[in-house]
C-alpha cells in the first residue's frame, strides 16, 4: 500500500500533495475542537499503529497481511484526528525508514489518511449501536478496498505507467478487497476488545 518513490509522475505527486494538504488544513481546524481525551489518544494510537504495521504476516507467494489502521483510527478518535494519526505514522515511516517515498507521501497520506480514514468513519457511523462490531469490520474492509482503488487511480493516471486505469484499478482494487477482509477482522477484533475492556476509548471518537 505504501507507494515508493518512482511510481508516480511529478504531476500526480503534486496533485496528491495538494489534496492532502487541503484536507489537512480542514482537519487541523476541526481537530482543534476535539475533546481532550481523544487528542491525548493520538500519539499513543499512532505509535501502536506504527508497530502494528511492522507485524506483517507474510504469506507464501510473496504477499503479506498487516493492519493499515485508518478505519481503527477513525473509529477511536474521529476522522479529523484520525487524519493526523495516519499522517504521523506515514511521515515517520517515509522520513526515517524510507518505507513509502517522500515524493509519494502526499499520495500515501491521501490513500491511508484521507480515503481510508473517512471511509472507515462513515461506514462505522452508518451502523446502529448494536451492530457496531460488524460496522467496524465493514469499515476496515471498505477502507482498505477504497484506499487500494485510490492507489490504483493514482498509478493509472500517472504517466510513469503506460497501461492506464483499466489495468491498475482491477489489480489494486481486487488485491486490496481481499486484503481488506483481514483489515476488517483486525479492526473488529480490536474494537470488540476495547469496547469490553476500555469502553472510554471507544467513546473518544466524536469529533
Amino acid at each position, binding site marked *: 500500500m505504501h507507494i515508493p518513490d518512482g511510481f508516480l509522475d511529478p504531476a500526480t505527486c503534486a496533485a496528491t500533495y495538494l489534496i492532502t494538504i487541503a484536507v489537512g488544513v480542514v482537519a487541523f481546524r476541526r481537530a482543534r475542537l476535539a475533546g481532550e481525551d481523544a487528542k491525548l489518544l493520538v*500519539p499513543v494510537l*499512532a505509535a501502536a499503529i506504527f508497530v502494528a504495521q*511492522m507485524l506483517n504476516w507474510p504469506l507464501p507467494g510473496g504477499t*503479506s497481511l*498487516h493492519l493499515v489502521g485508518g478505519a481503527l483510527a477513525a473509529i477511536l478518535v474521529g476522522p479529523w484526528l484520525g487524519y493526523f494519526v495516519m499522517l504521523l505514522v506515514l511521515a515517520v515511516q517515509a522520513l526515517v525508514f524510507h518505507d513509502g517515498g517522500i515524493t509519494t507521501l502526499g499520495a500515501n497520506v491521501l490513500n491511508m489518511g484521507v480515503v481510508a480514514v473517512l471511509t472507515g468513519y462513515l461506514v462505522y457511523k452508518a451502523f446502529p449501536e448494536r451492530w457496531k462490531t460488524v460496522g467496524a469490520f465493514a469499515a476496515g474492509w471498505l477502507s482498505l478496498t477504497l484506499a487500494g482503488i485510490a492507489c490504483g487511480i493514482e498509478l493509472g493516471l500517472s504517466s510513469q*505507467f503506460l497501461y492506464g486505469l483499466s489495468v491498475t484499478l482491477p489489480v489494486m482494487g481486487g488485491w486490496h478487497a481481499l486484503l481488506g477482509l483481514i483489515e476488517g477482522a483486525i479492526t473488529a477484533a480490536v474494537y470488540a476488545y476495547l469496547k469490553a475492556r476500555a469502553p472510554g476509548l471507544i467513546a473518544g471518537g466524536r469529533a
Partner: protein
Amino acid sequence: MRARQLLERHRRALLLTLALLVISPLFGVYLAELVGFHEPLDIAAEELGLEEITEEINWTPFLDYTVPGLPDWLGYVVSGLIGVGVVLALGLLLLKLLERK
C-alpha cells in the same frame, strides 16, 4: 506535562505497544525470510511494469527498518523503538499545536 499525562493515562497501551515491538522480528524478519516476502504493492507494480527508485535515492541509514552493524532482527526492534520515539515526540508536538486558544 502532556508527556506525563500520556504515560499515566495510556501506560497499558504503551506497554502493549512495546511488547508487540519486541516480538515484531518474528513477523517482519523471521517469517518474511521464511516465505520470501515482498510488499504486495511491489508485486502488483512488477506486474504493471513499474520500477521503484528507493535504493538509488535513499537518504536514511535505517532503510527498511535496519540499523547498520546490527543483525536484522535486532535492527528491526531498534528501528521500531526509534520509530515509536519519533512518533510520540511528533505526536506531543501536534497536541501542542492543537491546543485551543
